[in-house]
């Protein structure tokens, strides 16, 4: 086992779902290293929020980005070096509020990055305000009477944006989540994993999640219709089971591969040739 520990004191609340996610990530990274992907070629990109502290707890390459900008920063890294394997960690607020444009465009482009969205269904580090996936009626400090907005379904959103890999995991199902991460890394193109997690301080839904989640299987991973059925089984608001697993997977040429393909190694720029057209 590669030692990925750091000396930084973990400041997540006891019982936080992030611990399970961190454990799954460590297992996944170790598996990648065992399979011959060098640790130097793995980069963790994080956003801002409790979840994003993960970069301080993993002794790997990392870029601790701005709020909402982790996905696009990760795209820039992949563009510069397509050999890198990139894991992006961000919360539901970063992905679906502050940075939603980058999420949609990264999915549309098929940027070859792996986005792991910690979904605790509110802004936690700022002590509890509603996000785009908070259930209607959520009472937070900014909505003492309850949020009046309906939540959006993030998986439906990324499917519409043409994400080529869509999955859902749960922070308490570590082995299952590890496997989702590995499948995502193996997938060439944009991967989106939503990870349901409780926020023990502001939205402790662990019992609800334990009761509702089940491991689903989509026998036809390339079917948008089948994927949509699973994605819509739970509407983030009312009743219904919460399926976990890979819902959609379809190969498509990754954006950065396409963008890099005309480059010729060590070729000098032909400036004089261009100047001739200016005479």
């Amino acid at each position, binding site marked *: 086992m590669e030692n990925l520990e750091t000396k930084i004191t973990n400041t997540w609340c006891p019982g936080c779902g992030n611990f399970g996610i961190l454990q799954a990530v460590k297992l996944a990274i170790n598996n990648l290293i065992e399979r011959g992907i060098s640790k130097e070629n793995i980069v963790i990109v994080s956003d801002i929020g409790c979840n994003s502290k993960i970069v301080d707890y993993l002794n790997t390459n*990392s*870029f601790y980005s701005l709020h909402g900008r982790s996905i696009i920063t990760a795209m820039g*890294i992949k563009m510069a070096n397509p050999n890198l394997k990139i894991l992006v960690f961000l919360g539901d607020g970063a992905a679906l509020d502050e940075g939603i444009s980058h999420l949609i465009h990264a999915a549309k482009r098929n940027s070859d990055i792996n986005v792991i969205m910690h979904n605790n269904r509110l802004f936690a580090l700022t002590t509890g305000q509603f996000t785009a996936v908070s259930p209607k009626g959520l009472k937070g400090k900014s909505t003492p009477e309850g949020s009046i907005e309906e939540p959006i379904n993030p998986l439906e959103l990324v499917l519409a944006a043409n994400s080529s890999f869509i999955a859902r995991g749960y922070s308490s199902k570590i082995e299952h989540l590890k496997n989702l991460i590995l499948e995502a890394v193996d997938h060439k193109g944009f991967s989106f994993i939503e990870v349901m997690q409780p926020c023990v301080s502001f939205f402790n839904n662990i019992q609800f999640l334990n009761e509702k989640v089940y491991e689903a299987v989509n026998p036809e991973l390339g079917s948008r219709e089948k994927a949509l059925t699973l994605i819509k089984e739970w509407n983030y608001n009312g009743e219904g089971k919460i399926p976990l697993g890979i819902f959609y997977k379809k190969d498509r040429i990754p954006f950065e591969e396409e963008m890099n393909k005309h480059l010729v190694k060590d070729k000098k720029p032909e400036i004089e*040739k261009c100047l001739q057209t200016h005479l």
Partner: protein
Amino acid sequence: MGMENKKDYSVIIGGAAGQGSRKAGLIIAKLFNNLGYNVFIYEDYQSLIKGGHNFSVIRASEGQKFSIREKADFLLSLNEETIDKHEKSLQKNGLIVFNKDKIKREKGVGIALDTITKELGGISIMGNTALIAGFSKAVGIEWEDLEDALRKELGKGIEKNLEIAKRAYEETNTFLKIEKLKVEPDPLLTGNEAIALGAVKAGLDIYYAYPMTPATSILHYLAEHAKDFNIIVSQLENEIAVINSAIGSAYAGKRSMVGTSGGGFALMTEGISLAAQSETPTLIINSQRSGPATGVPTYSSQADLLFTLNSGHGDFVRFVVAPGDANESCYWSGKLLNLAWKYQTPAILLVDKDLSESTFEFDRKVLDQIKKENPVLWNGKDEYGRYADSKNGISPLAFPGDKAVVKATSYEHDEKGFSIEESEAVILMQEKRLRKFEEMEKEIDSLEAVKVYGNKNSKKAVVAWGSTKGVALEVAEKLGLKFIQPLMIQPFPQKQFDKAMKGVDKLILVECNALGQMEKVLRCHGIKVDKKILKYDMRPFTVEELEKKLKSI
């Protein structure tokens, strides 16, 4: 006509958007260029696709002049509106070249653009070729020179165009003969093209942008030549994406540049702060246009100086350089890319519409002064810390893929890049950056950060920056004044500016904004401006306009 031997000609060519006046203007500029004249083109266009009124002003002169005159010697009209709008700008003995199929007038050179084009089976845009040919004949340009220029510029349908040109050429009389000068032509480049080339020469790998006038043509030019230059050019969803992806690419070791204008630059400022905190090299081209907000979007302004100098939240120094012509734009985009990497910092090249989109005679030798300079890299042996403390505040760079753990961050951090909050740790890192800022300031000594021209003994001096340089320099020289041009504005080149001020007892500031922003910058550095000449109609000063204003002081 008294126009021969003048060696300083102004041509206005205009028409509705979509009529091709800009391209026709460029061909005329190239004709003059090939006759040995120094050429400068000012473009005036509106924010629309079809209709309206667009025009180019071409100045062809002996010696370098990057400004426009009040009066034109030749007015070439693709439509009637051009004559209505510009006839008053014509010299008394000036010549109007027009389409006599559409416009009835006694004076001037009428060419039957529609008849010729139709009879020879051309399409209507080829009327522009007939106009250029008629003009060429009227001013005594040889057919061979004209044919040569047309062949270079008009790839598609060239034979038909030449047929049309020949007819118009034959049907027109010669009114004067413009003298050929014995000067080899230099390439004609817009400011934006020069910026692109400078960055490419300094090792640009990736250009990210979102379209915004007047920076868009950098995106177009680099995209057109992406294979020639062996670079990636990528248009993204917004300017926030643009700056953050550039920072990501630089973290992974690739030299990245972004380009935008006021509103887009405003969106980038959060990222500029990130580049400073994470110490990630980033070159930003900020081409100013009129504001506030959407303003007069296809016209120029120098009103984002203070904003640029203060862009990004937090305490940090970024390089800000404002070049004044295409040569300087090329040199400084290359230099700033190198400096961004040497000091791992955001660097901003501050230009404006009249610099970005005007066309200049370009000196190839500038490119020889630019090379890719290597930054300080990790030696591959010591335990790596992205923010390792050092005497000069610069921590060696390593990239993902190297045998190191490379942790970059937007948070305050320790030497390894882990987040910290403790007082001592915060001070350590802030002071490391402060030492780096001092080094950035020292770098100025090796640069020509302030230029001095004109009568160096004059007690009266003119100061101007950016695209206003061209006209201010010309007028200052004409009036026997000293001319001071600050190029680097942050860090401020105090020593060089103080030296330039030696013997000056009256300083006149010339700039294109309403508040006199450069005065505030100079005042911060103990330099007193005695008089301000400001222009804020979003058009450049003409030589005569500025001369009159300067004489009245």
